[in-house]
């Protein structure tokens, strides 16, 4: 087969009609798989591997579960392939030809996969990258174009999508308060704060600088001490989150506690940020002191603001950002 040609009929070395049919089929299926996105075709064509890439990729698809196969890839005596997960479930019978399945490994296919390069599965969401078969999966778990999980902190909401979609979802489905502007002044009121056993929390979404931020306020047990914590998450990726800073302040009666920090990305779950203590933490006694009165009721005023950080260290690896003082 002439690897450089996109047109089946001009291949010189084809002697088998079946192969021509397969080529036509793969060419057609490229359009099907990539939703007629001309970008993809151009990208794949640029590597000169358009029909071959797809047909090898299809060979790596398990006939039973249709997932991509990874080593060890198995085959039966007749050469039909099977992924290792499905092999444990077919009771030693090849699902394609019903013959007895041995322990033959299809090493050749595993090796061919090494030279296979495929676009990221989030290509339709904007990811332009192409990866070798064996590193594609790993990239896809951290791909910046992958959809976001719903940032709602309650029962695990499994909704996914892009940021505008999730903002509407928070507003309409979770009934989260939406605020415009970059400063806030919230008063958290809770009668009988001592009765709080499980974590209780509140989420507000702020819209400023053309971005969306999630402000979390939560009461929980820290070890065995009751605390309140407030923190901000940026609805977007970590690199962009570093462009912003925020501050939170509580106080009263001669005392004041102020936190300044970088918002975490919503890629980090609400629980992960909470448990890393990356925010304003106030012991309950102190929160009640700030509430004034007879300390029976929590009336905690939390003020804060979000701003764009003009100076950025630009260093990689999460290294020190210049000291704000």
């Amino acid at each position: 087969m002439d690897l450089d040609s996109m047109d089946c009929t001009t291949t010189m070395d084809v002697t088998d009609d079946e192969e021509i049919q397969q080529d036509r089929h793969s060419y057609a299926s490229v359009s099907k798989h990539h939703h007629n996105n001309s970008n993809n075709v151009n990208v794949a064509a640029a590597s000169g591997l358009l029909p071959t890439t797809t047909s090898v990729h299809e060979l790596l698809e398990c006939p039973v579960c249709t997932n991509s196969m990874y080593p060890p890839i198995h085959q039966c005596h007749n050469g039909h392939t099977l992924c290792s997960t499905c092999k444990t479930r077919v009771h030693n019978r090849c699902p394609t030809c019903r013959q007895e399945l041995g322990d033959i490994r299809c090493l050749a296919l595993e090796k061919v996969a090494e030279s296979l390069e495929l676009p990221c599965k989030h290509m339709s969401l904007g990811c332009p990258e192409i990866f070798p078969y064996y590193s594609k999966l790993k990239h896809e778990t951290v791909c910046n174009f992958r959809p976001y999980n719903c940032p709602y902190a309650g029962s695990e909401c499994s909704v996914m999508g892009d940021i505008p979609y999730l903002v509407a979802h928070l507003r309409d489905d979770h009934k989260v308060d939406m605020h415009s502007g970059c400063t806030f002044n919230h008063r958290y009121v809770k009668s009988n704060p001592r009765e709080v056993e499980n974590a209780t929390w509140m989420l507000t979404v702020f819209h400023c600088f053309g971005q969306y931020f999630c402000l979390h306020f939560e009461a929980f047990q820290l070890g065995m001490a009751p605390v309140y914590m407030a923190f901000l998450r940026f609805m977007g990726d970590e690199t962009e989150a570093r462009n912003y800073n925020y501050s939170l302040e509580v106080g009263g009666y001669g005392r004041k506690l102020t936190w300044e920090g970088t918002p975490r990305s919503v890629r980090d779950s609400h629980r992960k940020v909470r448990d890393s203590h990356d925010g304003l933490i106030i012991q309950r006694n102190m929160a009640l002191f700030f509430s004034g009165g007879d300390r029976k009721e929590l009336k905690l005023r939390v003020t804060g603001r979000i701003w764009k950080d003009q100076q950025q260290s630009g260093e990689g690896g999460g290294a020190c950002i210049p000291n704000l003082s």
Partner: protein
Amino acid sequence: MEPQINDLQIDSRLHELHFTVCTKHMSSTIYQCPNDHTEEVNIESQEKKPFNCPYSGSKCGVTGDTQWLLVHLRNDHHVEMHDGRSFSHRYVHHNPKHLHHPTWMLTLLDCFGRQFCLYFEAFHLRKTPMYIAFIQFMGDEEEAMSFSYTLEVSGNGRKLTWQGVPRSIRDSHKTVRDSQDGLILTRKSALFFSTDNNNSNKELKLKISGRVWRDQTH
């Protein structure tokens, strides 16, 4: 109007002369003054009452006035004295995971013609490892309330600031620590500020800076 007496301020307020003590709003950590109330009103006897040594290590039983205690702290406890109203210290906590009992550090501050004790302590709050820093005034409560202080810990793009009123050394260091009346942070939080991120298991390096202010309105 100022709030009712509560746990946190109760010890500073006890000797406030014009404030009637209202038992209805106090909770169980009320200090019973060894003298009865009428004697507390007597300014003269209050001034003569000696202070306990604020060094909170071995229970030092030394008492005296502030000048005497300063000499005692420097000579007997080898506490450092820092001149000026602002300061910046770096605390290094070796082996932060192996904290069996509270470890702490005391520095003296000399400003406004007065002296202050700056405490930094690593301890456990109901099994959660914490750090606290606060300032106490070497003098009586009434004068202590004419000052305020800020403490700030920062690093890695984050900053935590506490502004408070220094407690008098009439309150023991432990009392102030247990009322959490200071800059308080969990060890996990502290790791965010620690300038030695590569070595997070071995050492905790915290930079704490601060200032003392004299309140003009008092």
